[in-house]
């Protein structure tokens, strides 16, 4: 088994699931070492928060009047604003009603943020991180030679669909096109960065100065599996408030629970330096590296086993 670690001490062979847990632990240890070596501060921010970032399609699990965070993003950006230029966190994130072969309602996310960087810098750093993890853990499927493929959303639509991102946003078919027509082709044999999303789909990302209809956002795919989402951060509190309002309107229109506006975050945002940040699914990374077909294979216990 790729990445197997020698002996448990009692000399007995481990089950496949146990092997994967050792493999997963090694991945997480390598991730930590990578960021520590580059001068990143590891932080832990509260899981239980009063105001999740308003997102049209992500619901937070209620927790005693507040909510469990769906991502540590808002807290991480407040820490950037407080004067920490390089931060990372590996933590649990919680999302309602997300369960499938690639989803767990509770999962592990790696997020890292770097002041003075943009999304292109983060793509390069992601290549370096994954290269180091693959190197320490027995390799990865496919070819990791850099640079990896970079494809804009517009190019991906032109290649794999009969429509455009704008047209499919207008007729409501964007998510289906991405999920069923585009994603399965991405990252085959070599990882792919899908970049430059329509600005409406990146409420927390900065728009491209040369093309404001598009945001400096990217997603990483490997063998059709979505691994990470990163962007140049929007640092304008006024624009961020407007984008949050749009997300809240979309939530209300879909009958979803309203969340309070994250005022302390908006207050701090004006002090945040130019930065870029990224969220990477650790379970997904392990799935890809280990060749697991289901996320259940790379976690210690699934919710159904509890």
């Amino acid at each position: 088994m790729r990445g197997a670690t020698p002996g448990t001490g009692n000399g007995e062979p481990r089950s496949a699931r146990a092997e994967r847990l050792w493999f997963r632990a090694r991945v997480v240890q390598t991730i930590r070492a990578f960021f520590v070596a580059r001068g990143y501060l590891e932080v832990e921010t509260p899981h239980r928060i009063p105001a999740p970032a308003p997102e049209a399609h992500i619901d937070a699990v209620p927790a005693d009047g507040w909510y469990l965070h769906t991502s540590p993003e808002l807290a991480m950006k407040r820490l950037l604003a407080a004067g920490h230029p390089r931060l990372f966190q590996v933590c649990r994130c919680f999302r309602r009603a997300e369960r499938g072969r690639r989803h767990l309602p509770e999962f592990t996310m790696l997020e890292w943020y770097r002041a003075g960087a943009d999304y292109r810098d983060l793509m390069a750093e992601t290549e370096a991180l994954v290269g180091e993890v693959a190197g320490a853990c027995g390799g990865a499927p496919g070819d990791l030679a850099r640079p990896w493929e970079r494809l804009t959303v517009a190019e991906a639509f032109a290649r794999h669909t009969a429509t455009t991102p704008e047209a499919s946003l207008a007729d409501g078919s964007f998510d289906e096109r991405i999920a069923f027509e585009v994603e399965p082709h991405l990252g085959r044999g070599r990882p792919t960065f899908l970049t430059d999303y329509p600005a409406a789909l990146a409420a927390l990302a900065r728009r491209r100065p040369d093309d404001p209809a598009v945001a400096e956002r990217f997603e990483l795919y490997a063998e059709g599996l979505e691994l990470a989402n990163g962007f140049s951060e929007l640092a304008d509190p006024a624009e961020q408030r407007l984008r949050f309002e749009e997300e809240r309107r979309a939530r209300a229109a879909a009958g979803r629970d309203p969340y309070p506006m994250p005022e302390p975050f908006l207050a701090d945002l004006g002090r945040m330096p130019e930065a870029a940040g990224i969220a990477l699914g650790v379970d997904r990374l392990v799935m890809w590296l280990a060749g697991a077909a289901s996320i259940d294979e790379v976690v210690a216990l699934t919710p159904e086993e509890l």
Partner: protein
Amino acid sequence: MAVYSAGELRKGLKLEIEGQPYHIVDMEFVKPGKGQALYRCRLRNMVTGTQVDRTYRSGDSFQSADVEERVMQYLYNDGAFYTFMDQKTYEQLQITADQMGDSKYFLTDNLEVDVLLFRERPIGVTLPNFVVLKVVRADPFAKGDTATNVQKPVTVETGYELPVPAFVEEGEKIQIDTRTGAYVTRVKG
């Protein structure tokens, strides 16, 4: 009947769509980053057997199918209709020869079957895996035939014809696999 939300969809659930009962054969939860949840379902029409693929979104809601399986006893047929009886209520219902399909060849007196009903109307029958039927017509076994695996066609009491080993005689009872229609073994008594 119950109403399901998209988040409750799973394999095995029975839904009514456009007046027809469907069984979810497979369900995949798909959610592109920052996008909406999509529920990709493979559905089988429980009446016609045809499969369709449908993608649903959160916010969609579904009617559960009024489908029931009842154990009933086969009574008789008049060529066009096959009559079954519920042994608890003595209620009888009829299934057309068309709906029975090949299952009609494996019915024995008082055989217990599972009748599938949609909105109280029969849409299908499931037989036990094996039934015992009497051979009513067979050419006799010739003593000189020593070649192995020789088969001959016989007819059983329901009019069904099938190949059996050459040693099977007229008047004997045989066990048939109702899923394949094939001979399994001779049965004594």
